[in-house]
């Protein structure tokens, strides 16, 4: 079990956990956190793939991808949280449940 494989498995596991959070937890914040955990999981896979290069400096391409990924996921999270706050101020709902009754 090399170091890379450990982190790869960790990535896969966290992806599923993040998906669990997104699917099961009704609170919108939990869902956003779930999304971030899934993002982190993917980045784990990418960076551990980068580590396969022998020698000190790993492959830079996945690193750039991860950096871009992090910025993008921050942007997305920022917008989602803003939307959650607006929904709360507008309707006081903190989950999507409200919508299902009167969908």
């Amino acid at each position, binding site marked *: *079990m090399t*170091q890379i494989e*450990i*982190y790869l*498995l*960790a990535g896969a*596991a*966290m992806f599923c*956990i*993040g998906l*669990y*959070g997104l699917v*099961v*937890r009704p*609170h919108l*914040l*939990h869902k*956003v*956190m*779930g999304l*971030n*955990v899934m993002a*982190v999981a993917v*980045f*784990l896979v990418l*960076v*551990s793939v*980068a*580590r396969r290069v022998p020698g*000190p*400096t*790993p492959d830079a391409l996945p*690193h750039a991808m*991860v*950096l871009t990924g*992090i*910025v993008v996921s*921050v942007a997305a*999270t*920022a917008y989602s*949280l803003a939307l*959650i*706050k607006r929904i*709360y*101020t*507008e*309707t*006081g*709902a*903190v989950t999507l449940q*409200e919508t299902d009754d009167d969908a």
Partner: protein
Amino acid sequence: MNSPVLWLDILVVVILILLSIRIFSEASLFKSVVLFIALGLFVSFAWVKLAAPDIALTEAALGAGVTGALLLDTVGHLRSRNVPYSKHRHAEDGTSSNA
């Protein structure tokens, strides 16, 4: 060939997985967010282990820092504010602290 360094990696991975499971099994919102920030820090530690300093720095600053701050701000927003416009009035505060 379990060199000592490997043990550290296994430890980090186990912590990461436990943390993420704990985030989603935690009832209280505030506690989940705090755990999430902790997860962010450990992940940046993982990046350091995987020889990705740039990412570690960004993760710490953006992933843990900014996202964590935003989440905390939202939790605060959800708890402290009464709802002027909605017809649902929420008696007690946003997070129920159950055992």
